[in-house]
């Protein structure tokens, strides 16, 4: 990165943010959107960084309709603040990302970070129903809406979800929310992969199931009392306090990578990690996180194995030199040409996060 001190902008409304973005883009200044800063290590080193555009003052709940189970928020609200609001109505957003607390909703959408509950609820890709994005030309473009089912126009939510702010800055979003489960029980086992596989193939699937390199399995069962009790009895695992999930969500090693493979390949992938490596995984999803303590060659080797299995290894954070050596993303997608054209259509001067994302 070129060493300059970037300007810091903290607009107080989506309109103001769009204007700041337009002003910067007009001068071809490089703009880096910032939410909670929890994923600031993600991506390649920036080519340029002139303006840090913070969303943190866009922190309103725009509308929460309990009866409709839909919430619209500004992008800078933290996940915790949103959950607190939803809990008053007995609802929640099923999102429990790592390196918590402090993620903003906009940041979570831009990065695509997820957590253990993805097993039951999917990722925000599945429950994001509306999005509003500021574009470098100063326009505010909305996609989707505030209803749970909607096929009017292109799915602009998918275009921006996980795009790391490279096509626009997310300023607001609407979600389908969920009732807080009537029963929510966590159990644990030291049985490693076999225990995890056993629990995942039972007739009642857990809502979250995590396995770590020490062989510890954490499983969370939610739903009706009778179903939850039956499965807990059958498993015979030890009860655990629900706070283990909060501890788990705080996981954020200094250097770490996300491995995503077809789920039946995950065990083999994880077994290929350097011996003694620390990791945790969602075997039912096909995602593992690796606390990298070995050198860059181990990451490069691991990535080639993962990519051969049809997956990806993405660095979530690493020292600059390390990141430069291994690269953040790995093999570019086969549709890179189209992706470049989309970038060109939305951010022709490459002012948004230049060099950080795949396009």
């Amino acid at each position, binding site marked *: 990165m070129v060493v300059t001190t970037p300007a810091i902008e903290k607009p107080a409304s989506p309109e103001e943010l769009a204007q700041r973005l337009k002003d910067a883009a007009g001068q071809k200044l490089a703009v880096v959107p910032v939410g909670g800063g929890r994923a600031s290590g993600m991506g390649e080193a920036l080519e340029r960084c002139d303006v840090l555009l913070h969303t943190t003052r866009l922190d309103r709940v725009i509308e929460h309709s309990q*009866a409709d189970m839909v919430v619209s928020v500004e992008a800078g609200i933290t996940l915790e603040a949103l959950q607190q609001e939803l809990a008053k109505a007995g609802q929640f957003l099923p999102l429990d990302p790592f390196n918590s607390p402090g993620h903003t909703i906009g940041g979570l959408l831009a990065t695509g970070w997820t957590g253990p509950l993805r097993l039951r609820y999917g990722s925000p890709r599945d429950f994001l129903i509306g999005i509003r994005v500021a574009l470098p030309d100063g*326009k505010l473009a909305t996609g989707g809406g505030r209803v749970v089912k909607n096929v009017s126009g292109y799915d602009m939510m998918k*275009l921006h979800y*996980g795009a790391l702010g490279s096509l626009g800055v997310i300023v607001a979003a609407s979600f389908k929310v969920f*009732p807080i489960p009537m029963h929510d029980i966590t159990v644990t086992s030291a049985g490693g992969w076999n225990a995890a596989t056993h629990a995942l193939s039972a007739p*009642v699937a857990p809502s979250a199931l995590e396995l770590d390199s020490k062989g510890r399995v954490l499983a969370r069962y939610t739903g009706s009392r009778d179903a939850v009790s039956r499965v807990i009895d059958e498993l015979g695992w030890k009860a655990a306090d629900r706070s283990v999930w909060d501890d788990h969500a705080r996981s954020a090693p200094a250097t770490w990578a*996300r491995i*995503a493979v077809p789920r039946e390949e995950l065990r083999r992938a994880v077994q290929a990690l350097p011996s003694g490596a620390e990791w945790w995984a969602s075997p039912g999803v096909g995602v593992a996180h690796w606390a990298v303590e070995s050198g860059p060659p181990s990451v490069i080797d691991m990535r080639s194995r993962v990519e051969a299995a049809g997956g*990806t290894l993405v660095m979530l954070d690493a020292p600059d030199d390390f990141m430069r050596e291994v690269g953040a993303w790995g093999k570019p*997608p086969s549709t890179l040409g189209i992706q470049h054209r989309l970038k060109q259509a939305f951010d022709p001067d490459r002012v948004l996060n230049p060099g950080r994302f795949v396009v």
Partner: protein
Amino acid sequence: MVPDSVRAELRSIVGSQAVIDAPNDLRIFERDGSIEGAVPDAVVLPSSTEQVAGVVKVAARNRIPVVPRGAGTGLSGGAVTIRGGIALQLTRMRRILEIDPVAQIATVEPGVVNQELSLVAAQHGLFYAPDPSSQKACTIGGNAAENSGGPHCLYYGVTTNHVLGMEVVLADGSVHWVSGDAPDRVGLDLCGVLVGSEGTLCAITKIKVRLLRIPPSIATMLAAFPSIETASQAVSAVIGHGIVPAALEMMDRVTVGAVEAHYHAGYPTDAGAVLLVEVDGIAESTRELMGSIGRILSENQGYAMREAQTPAERELLWAGRKGAIGALGRIKPNYYLHDGVVPRSRLPQVLSAVGEIGVHYKLPVANVFHAGDGNLHPNILFDLRDKEVLPQVEAAGEEMLRAVVELGGALSGEHGIGLEKSAFMPWTYTEDDLDAMHRVKDVFDAGGTLNPGKIFPDPTRKAVHLAGRTGLAVEAKWW
């Protein structure tokens, strides 16, 4: 128009048997399940990705429109060749290429019929969740292009939540895989953008979908209500208790009458509205949930509640629901159907507006819809032989959609915008919103050969006639 030289080229790609261009034969491809039709200049029936790519390439070079088409059951004119050109009929590509029971993934060609996939997957204890009412005929390719829904999408999600990856042919004839078996990808989510793009961005040649395990226990209940309002209230109450059933469907009196006459499923014909509720899971769970639901429904004036005791009874209850629109043919031969979505709590208001609009235009309206999602399906019933009636039908439909939008809703929950709702897009999207979507269109299909005249308002088409009966001047803004 398709010049002779192009016809010859098309025949050389797919074989002469697979090009249809005799005027009488072409008429079969004039329509889908919606009202407006247009005869294609040629129908091409490719049997491989390479052939699709070849056809698309020839069309692009000659600037001839190409409209991908599955079973033609779509309800928004998505498969209608409104600007002429080639109907790209994909139903010869109908192989299930692979079912991986361990990974729970199926890879299929676009012409595979939705229900056929579930039937084959059932041999492995699996099923494909999105279940449009036309599932006996509609294709997975069409489902992916339209991002189709269905009754069970309340719990399981719509098509886009189940498509893991696709092989697509872009407007220049290039072939690409987007996404795949692994959960996270690197780069932009092109697969997510292409699902639901209604044939305007690509032709779909293979689809990888997620299969789910068939739940060991399914409980299905029918409940009668004195009115649509009380039934809507009951829907809100069930969801408000934190219960999300697998399906939660409503039928009004008109629909129940037609369905019962046709299927003899035991629907209570005296009821103002009927709810069909289904939960699934293990037996302990479905028993407990159905018990709670039963209590909530009776607290909300539900009566004549009946739980299916056998799989055959369950099938019959669903046959009534899924065949409802066909059964409406007993009342009038034609129907016009919109599928606007409102926030669930607005159901009573929007249904009363729909009722008033029907009365005003003196057209019978039958409601049968996904109540749990707030996804309406008002069927305006008419007889197309009555030449005077069509403008009335269209005007009534527009007003119903307008009422949906005024209550904070969306133009379509699962049928797509296609031809018939493109003019209404500015009701819910600003110029800037539509401009952003246009940029996507231009990236994928700068020449505009793929399914032209769909989704975006077309200034060359008739203006929207809105009698303005609903009257409320509401800004169609989300934020």
